């Protein structure tokens, strides 16, 4: 095994007891990047020089006996997180040259935990997309099949972990942008409860839905990453001042006696047959662990997509207003007046999907339409949230497919936004309700593409998710495969 193939907890042991240096790990990761990045294109910006310098510092720390939770571990960041002094583009032309003057809280926390950043990963422009094809910086390919998309919007972060181009990574999830690419790339991805991980420094797409979370190679690493990034942040008003448990304590606790809800509305026509079969196996696995699977109902499921595609674009239309060419980022030459500058900047600076959502959102908030769209959507959102609250009185966790299909072909859905939006059909409700969700590998299609299973739990019950996902991971006996890159 090469160092870049290992997990955080495996590397921690090696650093602690075997005297493996962070510099060796970083070297291994960058040689892997050199070998496969040309095919995968997971990164927008590599921070090689910085990574080696940080690794050297980590090695010095280790020698002095300073061992932090992530000391010397190479981690990739989605290019939506602000990094002081390092390009942060959000996958957009309009921020193609933007270097933030500050670090996002999560970036700061990871630094404090000893992490070494490898670079900034590719993503759909402003996190709007499910395939990483809307990035201004080109597409990312799925390491399992280079003809296919890695999912999105955090496709770069998912692909980087799957291709061993980092040990773990950070993504963001507004409607499934961590869980869907995790499923499509065969890695673990968690979206924490809204308010659990600080959004400060996360470039906003839809403020009431956005949440930062980790991509890892296994569930134990997910717990380690969550320990590093979760917690109250006084710089964010929607951050919740609750104590954070040690998530690693939920590993191998077992789920004997649990009730696991299977929402009937999620097993619909149109699910890929191999995924349906994998889900049946997943149910068997969960029951094999001593839990009981019960059918539950989330009656407002059919409205999720509609509600999401009003609320998310409405918030985005306002959040993206600041990209006006005045202060930073892209501004074309030769404007004749202010209005002309705005028009030229935003017309050329944003891609088609971003413009589509800005227009939808602007319309939904317009005078005379607000009540019919935004207000109504907010009301239905409350019902969706209530569905989950009621469901969790009947079960400890919910099991669903993460995505209705495995990774699709590059370009397949680019001309059909509705088909693209359906990729997030099983993940969107989680964001609307604010609850946490995790996607874990649960097998492969006949064609060898990864399939993900999604577990959901109540607000601030990430521990339960770690508990059930780690038990599932251990017992499901998923075939260990690596993408043939």
């Amino acid at each position, binding site marked *: 095994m090469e160092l870049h193939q290992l997990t955080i907890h495996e590397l921690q042991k090696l650093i602690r007891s075997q005297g493996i240096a962070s510099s060796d790990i970083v070297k291994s990761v960058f040689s892997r990047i050199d070998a496969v990045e040309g095919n995968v294109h997971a990164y927008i910006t590599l921070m090689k020089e910085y990574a080696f310098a940080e690794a050297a510092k980590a090695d010095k720390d280790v020698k002095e006996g300073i061992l932090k939770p992530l000391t010397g571990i190479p981690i990739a960041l989605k290019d939506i997180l602000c990094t002081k002094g390092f390009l942060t583009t959000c996958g957009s032309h309009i921020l193609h040259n933007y270097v933030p003057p500050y670090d996002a809280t999560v970036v700061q926390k990871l630094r404090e935990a000893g992490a070494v950043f490898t670079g900034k990963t590719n993503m759909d422009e402003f996190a709007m997309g499910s395939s990483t094809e809307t990035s201004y910086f080109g597409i990312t390919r799925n390491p399992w099949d280079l003809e296919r998309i890695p999912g999105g919007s955090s496709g770069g972060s998912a692909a980087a972990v799957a291709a061993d181009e980092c040990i773990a990574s950070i993504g963001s999830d507004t409607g499934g942008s961590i869980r869907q690419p995790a499923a499509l790339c065969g890695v673990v991805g968690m979206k924490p409860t809204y308010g659990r991980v600080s959004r400060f420094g996360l470039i906003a797409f839809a403020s009431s839905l956005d949440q930062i979370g980790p991509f890892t190679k296994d569930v134990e690493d997910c717990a380690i990453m969550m320990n590093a990034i979760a917690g109250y942040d006084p710089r964010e008003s929607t951050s919740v001042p609750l104590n954070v448990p040690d998530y690693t304590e939920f590993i191998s606790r077992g789920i004997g006696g649990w009730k696991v809800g299977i929402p009937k509305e999620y097993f619909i026509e149109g699910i890929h047959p191999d995924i349906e079969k994998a889900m049946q196996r997943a149910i068997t696995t969960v029951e094999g662990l001593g839990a009981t699977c019960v059918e539950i109902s989330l009656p407002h499921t059919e409205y999720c997509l509609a509600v999401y595609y009003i609320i998310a674009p409405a918030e985005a239309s306002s959040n993206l207003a600041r990209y006006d060419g005045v202060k930073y980022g892209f501004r074309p030459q030769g404007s004749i007046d202010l209005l002309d500058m705005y028009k030229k900047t935003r017309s050329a600076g944003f891609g088609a999907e971003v413009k589509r959502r800005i227009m939808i959102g602007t319309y939904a*908030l317009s005078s005379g339409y607000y009540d019919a769209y935004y207000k109504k959507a907010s009301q239905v959102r409350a019902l969706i949230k209530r569905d989950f609250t009621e469901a969790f009185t009947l079960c400890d966790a919910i099991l669903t497919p993460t995505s209705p299909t495995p990774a699709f072909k590059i370009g397949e859905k680019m001309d059909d936004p509705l088909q693209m939006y359906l990729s997030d059909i099983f993940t969107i409700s989680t964001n609307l309700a604010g609850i946490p969700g995790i996607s874990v590998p649960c097998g492969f299609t006949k064609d060898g593409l990864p399939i993900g299973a999604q577990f959901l739990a109540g607000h601030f019950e990430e521990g339960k998710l770690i508990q059930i996902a780690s038990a599932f991971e251990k017992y499901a006996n998923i075939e260990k495969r690596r993408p043939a890159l």
Partner: protein
Amino acid sequence: MPYEPVIGLEVHAQLLTETKIFCSCSTQFGAEPNSHTCPVCMGMPGVLPVLNRKVVEYTMKMALATHCRINEACNFARKNYFYPDLPKGYQISQYAQPLSEHGYVDIELDGGKKRIGITRIHMEEDAGKLLHDEHLPSSYVDLNRTGVPLIEIVSEPDMRSTDEAVAYLKRLHEILVYLEICDGNMEEGSFRCDANVSLRPRGEMMFGTRTELKNMNSFRNVQRALDYEIKRQQYILESGQDVIQETRLWDDSKGETQSMRGKEEAHDYRYFPDPDLVPIVIDNAWTEEMKKSLPELPLEKRERFIRDYQIPPYDAGVLTSSRALAGYFEEVARLSGKPKIASNWVMGDVLRFLNEEKRDIKECPVLPGSLAEMIQLIEDGTISGKMAKDIIVEMYRTGKSPQAVIEEKGMIQITDEGTLEKTVAEVIAANPTQLAQYRGGKEKLFGYFVGQVMKATQGKANPQLINELLKEMLAKE
């Protein structure tokens, strides 16, 4: 046809918090451009607002002082529009759920009191400033003011004349300054006003088409702009035309209002609740705490002064025009025990000195204790009122106590009968001609003798004693 103006005002007042509403940058005025900025108030990607609690408390104070109802829960909304001085592309304001509603203030007019309704008072952030280079085709953005807390006070359309509007504005101004939540400086823009004006035939219930007036940066300009706009609309209506609903800018140099944008160019601000901020919940305990922290307000104070100190309404008005002045006066009144006399000295000499030098009462060199002491010295006859007029000049100039000035200048009043009798006798002896005339019936010359005695004593003689002695001694053969 006689027309009646209908006026409603929107006042924006900058709050005197030390830091901005959503970040910890300084609110200080006049600093180097963009020196009081951070990623949050510059609207950098990824930043989030955190509300300054002081802003809520200051707004609650104004709401309580104007009899508004404070809503148990309120929230912030985004007002979306593009302008280079607005770095986020939206202003964080309050819309559907403001902090407070349904209040009023009473204004005093020649014809008596009138109550002006307040629709709402809400919190919001200020925008930045644009600086234009006349020699270059470029503009600069200064974001120091971005995020400075504002409250917007919206009145009901209750005012029926320019005078009422100005009186209302002055009343708000006075309350804000009294509460020490706004410095009230109109030139620097800490107190700004927009007006909605329409005309209707007297007796008509329906409102006419209104225009919105902006850019009036002094009370005088508000007066002039409203007068102009009322005349303009009257002319339009009298000539059988319709007033167009639009926003108009007051041009101070031309003395007229000019169309800025019409109804069809009005922005659709696309308000929606700001998802980055949580609702503000205000419980009774918090409201009570704020109520307790309110100072006595100008109108109450004025009435108390008239009642308790028996001073004329005009004087009470002057003395309560600022909290510091009222405090000064009350201190002098308390220490001297003579409120009416204290009022005369403060209104007369002290304010005259200060006004001449454009100084504030807070900088007055004559401390309230000194002034009270001087009043007592007059009362007990140590100095005369006339001497005091000179002494207070010295006190103001040097900041010394009256005792110190008196000692330095040897200004003790001569109240010793023996000493004065001697002087009076000398004066009479030295003026035989006048004496003869006086005795011959020319009683006016009494004053002449008083003057001579004063002159001989360098003004230090007790005037009452001079009178008594002169009367007695002039009558003697």
